[in-house]
């Protein structure tokens, strides 16, 4: 069974995503900010990290950068990182969330609100 980590500060979004992933056959670990995500990835090997972007304490972009740097220089196994955030439809104002996610080391992006279909496609792509 693949190990999935959900990094999300909103209890509502955790409830929804967790239930969707359960219906798709997965139990997951949950942490609530970027610092907890870095600690979690240090303790356990994950196949997939679903990382919310906007979080308190440490946001998802910074957490991903940190985790990537440890993966490249340390002994951590590389997990697929998928950014999840409200879709920014601002085109080229430098604040495009999708572009920032990729620039900070994420492999993919799922737009909020998260749906069954989006999650299913993500899992099929990265956890075949």
């Amino acid at each position: 069974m693949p190990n999935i980590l959900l990094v999300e500060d909103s209890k509502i979004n955790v409830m929804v995503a967790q239930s969707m992933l359960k219906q798709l056959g997965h139990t997951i670990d949950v942490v609530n900010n970027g610092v907890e995500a870095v600690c979690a990835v240090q303790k356990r090997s994950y196949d997939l990290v679903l990382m919310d972007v906007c979080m308190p304490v440490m946001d998802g972009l910074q957490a991903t950068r940190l985790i990537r740097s440890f993966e490249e220089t340390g002994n951590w196994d590389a997990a697929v990182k998928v950014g999840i955030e409200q879709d920014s439809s601002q085109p080229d104002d430098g604040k495009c969330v999708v572009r920032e996610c990729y620039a900070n080391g994420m492999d993919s992006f799922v737009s909020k609100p998260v749906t069954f279909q989006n999650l299913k496609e993500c899992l099929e792509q990265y956890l075949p």
Partner: protein
Amino acid sequence: MEVVQIQRNLVDYTKSLFMEGFLDGQFLQLQQLQDESNPDFVAEVVSLFFDDSQKLLNELTIALDQPIVDFKKVDAHVHQLKGSSSSIGAQKVKNACIAFRNFCEVQNIEGCLTCLQQVKLEYYLAKNKFETLFRLEQQIVASGGSIPMIEMGF
């Protein structure tokens, strides 16, 4: 009233909430997550949303009442409210948040205050609608019936 009639009332009421823009397709996603192992899922998530939202609205009221408004902080709260409302399909609340964020970005205090009132209004309207919805569901269950699923083809 017969359970069949209450079920019809529930279907019609739910459809009206979609037609009037209170709900969007994300609500149907939530309904799909409700099953025998999780029979109160929708009510639990919606209840959590309203508790959370009330706190956020209180924080926003305080933040916008400061002599020097921290628009980043205000925007962060609105962002959170927009996210959670969109996660449960509360479309009008979500849309009110979108307008709110635009005023945060340009640091327009008057616009923000107007938007806060609008978000509060949409929040109370949505709360009222959901309470009616859950009351109908409870009547159906109390009468021994099952909650009908809403088809998207309407």
